[in-house]
């Protein structure tokens, strides 16, 4: 430890810290300035960006000793020139919706301050250069660039009563995301918390035995070394209700690299100092099955007793009898593991109750109620003994639906009877948490002479990795969607989830549908080519619309706006084709190409009850509180629920207070997944608002359209009546619930799996350097049927972010266990990779949805990769059937 003196946000500061500790750590852990985030500790994400003597730098790469004598500014700065520029930027970020989850925002803000202090009037390219070192996984960057360029942000006026839905108001939780005060998983813990570090398997498949742990614990100065034997309840977790196949701590056998083996608990210094090699673990490596081909081989060892042939599950859909027709296309497609790469690695703490039963967990999550159920089972206690308090969530995208730190923390806290905290390293997060399923797909499609699709066949193996996680979804969601949003009478779809010794695959934005869309949209282009039809034209002819029947036999009675989406894109499509033709006429080395793709996506869980329930109180002191259990992972559900509820009740949004996603204080609003929150929880929020309104109207004996106004404890109802809330015997309270109507799928995959579907189409313009195989996306135009845009700014944010992830899936993202476990080998798009994006919002209202709204979160990602592949083919004549299209892969095909 040394004393380090420097100027921090304009004021002198002295801190005692280890000289080699990263400055980010000293700021966060010793000075309590948790506004500076750590996403990788390797310079790759830029979340830790601060100013050192006025120049942006990654605080995670600076030894604390180098702060001596320096001027350091962090996102917490309020004074001086930095404070002034920050204030302006915060306002602009709010107005433009530039912060979604907000974990990257401090870094973005500081990088922008660095630029604006040097150059107060930069152009877009200069902003891009300045922010190029900060990764954002949520926004697709466009709104961030807009915000930095907005020199005079205009605050948005708060909407009046009844006008919240449809208003582009700033997210309600935005301020805390921009001043560094929002509390993410690593930003809060009791002072007396011990630290947990998980020892993970370096082998993909191995048996292991443990030696004298007690001696090791002593020698290493630890409070405890946890093993499978320390799990008080059931040492297993998993998403499928009937299949809890993943141990919290492995019991003598590991099935993937990164599996948890031991938990080291002690002071931070003690657990951090342990070398894994110093622990008494004896490894006996076994042959590992990588990929579904190896795991499905005749002689492959069986990884789980319940899964002969390593087959977790198989699902299908049969309708009519597929046959050949005038035009016939077929292809084999391969996709990679894709990492969520949320910028916030998993983190949190557990606080045990003194009674030896209760447990409170503060951690980032997308599914607090599921966390509660899993943690309770692992602890062997009743569910209501566990309280989950979600932290702010620095991105999820499906990856924080499964538990990660929660059961580990709970086991440690119970054993030590002390609060215990953990922060995953980036490598640990990448190696141990779920991925998008890699898929090997064979698909066939046929069309008649008019280009009408007549048959479709799909057969795919999805790699679920070592454990099931969301693997079951492969069997239901994929076959239902695989054929794409087209009228097709004859289909035969098969999808299998196969166990391997790879990282477990789980939920990731679009769940299996993006992989299937890559195959299907490619075949559509094949058919168009064979028939000499324009690629837009063939899609428009077959686009499913209102009154049509889906592949699972469901009639779309309403809100099916794909034809409108395609029509909206037509002018841009024609212009793009003309631009490409003109550019490519001279056969230049850098060719342009235009591509197109469509998608559909069922909102909510497949053929499963997935209710949401909310509560609204109007207390006798005049406070109006929405108890909302939906977790906002950056997509904006907190804001959207409030907008909907406010209009349903008829009071202005600004009068609402909120209690959010805490299992002890809110009802279950289900998981933040499957694009269900706006649709399902939003409807529950609407029902809740309407229910309270009905109570009030009844109390006042007022007519349906009476206007409400709340001033202090005086609630005016219509022109004549005033209720004095203070005089009431009890607070006014109302609840609302919604569960979308679905039916089970029969053995042929027929039924009503979803109450509603989102639809979208996108076109992409790419350039391909034909000498180097380098593809650059120049422009994307998206059209998406969202039912109703409750908050257009937030909807656009979802679409931009989905497109950026789709671009990554198409061109650069490939998780390889043991090889791309960090953010410099695993590439996600930077501010320089995401193109200009234009969006057409199509609003074909969904009668079941709140004010006509339905889900938007996942759909945006689905068409992007196939549209880019379609454009690459247009530019080069090469059909890429493997993603990501790394330069060398495209180059090889061009040889």
């Amino acid at each position, binding site marked *: 430890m040394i004393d380090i003196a420097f100027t921090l946000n304009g004021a002198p500061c002295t801190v005692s810290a280890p000289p080699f500790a990263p400055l980010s750590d000293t700021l966060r852990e010793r000075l309590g300035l948790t506004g500076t985030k750590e996403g990788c500790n390797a*310079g790759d994400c830029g979340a830790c960006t601060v100013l050192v003597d006025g120049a*942006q730098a990654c605080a995670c*790469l600076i030894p604390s000793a180098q702060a001596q004598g320096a001027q350091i500014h962090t996102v917490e700065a309020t004074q001086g020139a930095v404070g002034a520029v920050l204030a302006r930027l915060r306002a602009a970020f709010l107005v433009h919706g530039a912060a979604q989850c907000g974990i990257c925002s401090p870094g973005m803000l500081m990088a922008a301050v660095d630029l604006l202090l040097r150059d107060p009037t930069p152009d877009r390219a200069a902003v891009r250069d300045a922010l190029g*070192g900060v990764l954002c996984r949520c926004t697709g960057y466009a709104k961030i660039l807009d915000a930095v360029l907005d020199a005079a942000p205009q605050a948005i006026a708060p909407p009046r009563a009844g006008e919240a839905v449809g208003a582009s108001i700033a997210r309600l939780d935005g301020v805390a995301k921009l001043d560094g005060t929002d509390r993410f998983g690593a930003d809060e813990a009791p002072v007396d918390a011990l630290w947990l570090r998980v020892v993970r398997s370096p082998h993909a498949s191995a048996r292991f035995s443990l030696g004298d742990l007690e001696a090791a614990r002593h020698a290493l100065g630890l409070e405890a070394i946890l093993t499978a034997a320390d799990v008080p309840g059931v040492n297993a977790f998993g998403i499928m209700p009937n299949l809890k196949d993943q141990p919290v701590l492995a019991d003598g056998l590991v099935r993937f690299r990164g599996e948890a083996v031991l938990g080291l608990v002690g002071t931070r210094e003690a657990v951090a100092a342990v070398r*894994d090699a110093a622990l008494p673990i004896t490894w006996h490596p076994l042959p590992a099955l990588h990929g579904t081909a190896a795991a499905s081989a005749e002689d492959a060892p069986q990884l789980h007793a319940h899964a002969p042939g390593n087959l977790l599950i198989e699902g299908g859909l049969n309708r009519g009898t597929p046959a050949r027709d005038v035009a016939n296309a077929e292809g084999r497609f391969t996709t990679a593991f894709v990492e969520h790469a949320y910028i916030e690695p998993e983190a949190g703490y557990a606080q045990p109750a003194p009674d030896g039963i209760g447990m409170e967990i503060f951690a980032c999550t997308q599914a607090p109620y599921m966390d509660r159920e899993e943690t309770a089972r692992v602890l062997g206690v009743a569910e209501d003994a566990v309280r989950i308090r979600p932290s702010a969530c620095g991105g999820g995208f499906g990856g924080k639906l499964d538990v990660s730190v929660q059961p580990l923390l709970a086991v440690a806290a119970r054993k030590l009877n002390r609060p215990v905290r953990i922060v995953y390293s980036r490598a640990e997060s990448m190696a141990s948490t779920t991925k998008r399923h890699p898929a090997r797909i064979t698909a066939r499609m046929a069309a008649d002479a008019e280009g009408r699709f007549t048959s479709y066949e799909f057969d795919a193996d999805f790699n679920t990795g070592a454990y099931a996680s969301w693997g079951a979804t492969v069997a239901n969601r994929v076959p239902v969607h695989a054929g794409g949003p087209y009228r097709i009478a004859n289909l035969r779809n098969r999808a299998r989830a196969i166990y391997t010794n790879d990282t477990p695959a789980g939920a990731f934005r679009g769940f299996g549908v993006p992989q299937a869309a890559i195959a299907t949209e490619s075949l559509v282009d094949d058919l168009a080519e064979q028939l000499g039809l324009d690629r837009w034209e063939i899609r428009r002819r077959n686009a499913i619309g209102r009154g049509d029947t889906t592949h699972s036999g469901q009639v779309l009675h309403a809100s099916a706006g794909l034809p409108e989406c395609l029509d909206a894109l037509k002018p841009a499509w024609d212009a793009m084709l003309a631009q490409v033709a003109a550019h490519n006429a001279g056969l230049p080395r850098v060719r342009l190409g235009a591509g197109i793709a469509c998608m559909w996506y069922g909102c909510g869980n497949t053929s499963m009850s997935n209710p949401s329930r909310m509560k609204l109180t109007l207390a006798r002191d005049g406070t109006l509180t929405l108890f909302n259990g939906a977790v906002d992972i950056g997509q904006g559900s907190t804001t959207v629920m409030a907008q909907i509820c406010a209009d349903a009740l008829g009071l202005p949004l600004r009068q609402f207070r909120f209690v959010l996603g805490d299992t002890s204080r809110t009802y279950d609003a289900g998981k933040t997944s499957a694009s269900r929150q706006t649709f399902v929880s939003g409807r529950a929020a609407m029902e809740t608002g309407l229910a309270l309104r009905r109570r009030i109207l009844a109390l006042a004996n007022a007519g349906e359209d009476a206007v409400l106004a709340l001033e202090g404890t005086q609630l005016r109802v219509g022109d004549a009546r005033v209720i004095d809330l203070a005089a009431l015997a009890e607070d006014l309270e109302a609840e609302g619930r919604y569960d979308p109507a679905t039916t089970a799928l029969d053995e042929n995959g027929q039924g009503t799996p979803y109450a509603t579907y989102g639809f979208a189409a996108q076109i992409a313009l790419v350039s391909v350097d034909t000498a*180097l195989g380098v593809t650059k996306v120049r422009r994307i135009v998206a059209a998406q049927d969202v039912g109703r845009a409750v908050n257009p700014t937030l909807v656009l944010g979802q679409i931009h972010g989905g497109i950026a992830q789709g671009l990554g899936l198409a061109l650069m993202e490939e998780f390889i266990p043991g090889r791309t476990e960090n953010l410099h080998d695993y590439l996600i798009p930077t501010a320089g990779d995401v193109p200009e994006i234009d969006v057409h919002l199509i609003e074909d209202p969904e009668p079941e949805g709140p004010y006509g709204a339905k889900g938007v979160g996942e759909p945006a990602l689905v068409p992007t990769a196939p549209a880019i592949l379609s454009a690459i083919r247009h530019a080069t004549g090469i059909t890429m059937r493997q993603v990501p299209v790394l330069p060398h892969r495209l180059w090889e095909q061009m040889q």
Partner: protein
Amino acid sequence: MTAYHRPTTLQDALAIRAGADVAVLAGGTDIFPARTARAAWGDPTHKDVLDLSAIPGLRDIDETAAGWRIGCLATWSSLMRAKLPPIFDGLKAAAREVGGMQVQNRGTLVGNLVTASPAGDGIPNLLALNATVEVASPRGLRVLPVAVFLTGYRATALAADELATALHVPRLENAQGGFRKLGARHYLVISIAMAAGVIATDAAGRVAEARIALGACSAVAQRLPLLEAALRGVERAKAAQLVQPHHLAGLSPIDDIRATAAYRRDAALVLLRDLLEARG
């Protein structure tokens, strides 16, 4: 516990270096990620650290009688900002493409050289600049050409008691530097391959001297003597057409997560042609 030294004189630094097995730290942009990577898989140990950053005078970029001297603490950003002639344009271009601005503001050119990664963007530029490395130890100073300084994959000729104190770049009349980097994304990307060159032309517009180097196509970045010889005396405007596959003799590109060897070989030719096509 890792000991941490932050001396304020070069003499003290050399004494510490000679007295113990320490990791030398300049900007830390290679040291910290490496430490994080090791710790992630259970090796949190680290050598004692010798931090050079408090020693005055090591950041300067100066013109000398023979050319230029770049102090060992000169960062990518300071290179970009320095007033330097066109021979440095390749190095400056590389500086602008290293990581993001955060890394450019802290990382040093000398650190990049000492890390000796095949993908280090500074290295082919230094080879093309005919740079030499000034190395100090309690035993005195010595100066090594960069090609001699680099002894293999992530290996250098630095002895256990030595520090690299500066780089020297000799003058070359009418010389223009250039750089071409190939990566799979826009910012923050490690090169799949890169080409750097310095070309001096005579009054008639012919190549008087060509120094061309490729990175990420062999364990150590290499000059291309066959290509350089072929370029000598040809019309500068026609230089790009001369690039031939056999000029890559001696390279040994590999397959890795970023690309295949065959692709690298072909891409290298394209980068070389692009490099030679461009002028100033």
